């Protein structure tokens, strides 16, 4: 006998409001349907009534985790429409803050995954690591969530204490190598909860157009930092970890290894941080009529902004945001097919979904 089990929109197994209706036979999921929109704020429409300063603050609030990525992508698009190029130091600071944000996002996710596996101690370890990153972000920007780092033509704040970042990088690398990666890879509990669970095949991942760690865990080697470098990424040496199994364990491993790669990028960026200005110095901007598009590799995958402007206007004519979870979320339906009901919260969490981003 088949029966429908609704999960959400408000459910202890979900981090944010959305709804997954699962058709089950016994404990096995045979079909699923997703509903989103519970965080819909009409931000794209609202952006059309904000000027070029206000719109940066508005778009920073699309997402509470990767807020910096949204302003980075938006500012890059607006720089395309104003013809401005940020100075080299600003490009490096953009890389540093983007990688700090990736570290905090991935350690947050690892903690949540550990909690869903029943690994409370690992949850605390991951959140302790995340706190170190948050402390650095707060020291740089004065904020723990919306850092206000990006502006048209550069960044608002300097990196005044590179040694503090290096100390944090060393602490994270040591703890990842000593505890997190070995336990996630060798613990019998972690393996039994993750290996072979929530599989997204290479073919299905390509067909669904998934992005970021979700794509790389299904064998799709795509990373905009390599394929279409922005800011100062062209000057960094790093790998984009790729796994082939497409299961929860593969997604876990990709993110764990990406934490190590982010540390590697941070070391290089801090060592090579060039002297100079933080921004072009402009505070009034003349936008060309047209559309500019920018793409950035956020912690969850590719973010794209299309920004349209009319010359002489202070407000954008249109801003369209394609977030990574918007691309990844439809694939959940295929990941949960054939899964045990008890595994579905972890499977959903394994794409690191963000519904604030998705709904906008």
């Amino acid at each position: 006998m088949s029966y429908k089990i609704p999960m959400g929109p408000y459910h202890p197994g979900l981090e944010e409001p959305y709804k997954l209706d699962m058709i089950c036979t016994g404990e096995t999921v045979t079909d699923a349907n997703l509903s989103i929109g519970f965080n819909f704020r009409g931000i794209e429409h609202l952006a059309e009534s904000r000027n070029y300063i206000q719109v940066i603050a508005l778009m920073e609030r699309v997402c509470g985790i990767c807020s910096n990525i949204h302003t980075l992508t938006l500012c890059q698009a607006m720089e395309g429409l104003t013809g401005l190029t940020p100075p080299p130091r600003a490009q490096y600071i953009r890389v540093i803050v983007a990688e700090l944000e990736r570290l905090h996002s991935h350690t947050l996710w690892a903690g949540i995954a550990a909690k869903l596996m029943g690994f409370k101690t690992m949850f605390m370890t991951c959140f302790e690591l995340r706190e170190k990153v948050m402390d650095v972000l707060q020291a740089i920007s004065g904020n723990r969530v919306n850092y206000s780092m990006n502006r048209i033509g550069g960044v608002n704040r300097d990196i005044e204490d590179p040694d503090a970042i290096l100390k944090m990088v060393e602490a994270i690398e040591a703890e990842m190598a000593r505890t997190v990666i070995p336990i996630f890879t060798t613990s019998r509990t972690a393996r039994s909860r993750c290996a072979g669970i929530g599989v997204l095949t290479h073919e299905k991942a390509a067909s669904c157009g998934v992005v970021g760690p979700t794509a790389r865990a299904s064998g799709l080697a795509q990373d905009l930092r390599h394929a279409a470098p922005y800011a100062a990424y062209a000057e960094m040496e790093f790998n984009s970890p790729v796994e082939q199994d497409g299961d929860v364990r593969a997604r876990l491993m990709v993110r764990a290894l990406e934490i190590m790669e982010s540390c590697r990028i941070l070391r290089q960026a801090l060592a090579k941080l060039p002297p100079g200005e933080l921004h072009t110095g402009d505070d009034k901007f003349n936008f060309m009529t047209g559309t500019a598009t920018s793409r950035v590799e956020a912690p969850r995958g590719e973010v794209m902004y299309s920004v349209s402007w009319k010359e002489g206007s202070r407000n954008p004519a249109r801003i369209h945001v394609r977030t990574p979870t918007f691309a990844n979320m439809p694939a959940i339906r295929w990941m949960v097919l054939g899964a045990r009901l008890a595994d579905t919260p972890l499977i959903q969490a394994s794409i690191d979904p963000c519904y604030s981003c998705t709904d906008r």
Partner: protein
Amino acid sequence: MTSLEFIPATLGIHEPWVEKGGVHWLQPGKLTVRELAQAMNAIHARFITITAYELPKDEGLRLEYHWDLDGQLLGFPFQLAAKSIESIYDLCEAVDWIEREIHEGFAIDFVGRDYQPLLLREGQTPGVNLREEVK
């Protein structure tokens, strides 16, 4: 790797690519969106998104389809005479949510597919992103 320069001829388009605003643009001419989707599938381009624009009064709507080819962002604009266009969902699974979102935001009908509500709830009227309220 497919070189960009060969794509227009494959599609029967005589116009060259125009690189502007971070996108390689190609005017599709008489090419339908379904023919375009088939061509993008053939070269293993990765679907990114569709961006909808409400143009100034009486000029209608424009849809810009984006694919990625080896890190290069491709763009194909389609001007909509009426508020409808063929769906490519059966050719490209990745368009499912964005076609549904544009249907709800701009009341554009993607012909040839069924809809389930995405951001709206059952019974709500599509067109929430249009400048004038849809009744």
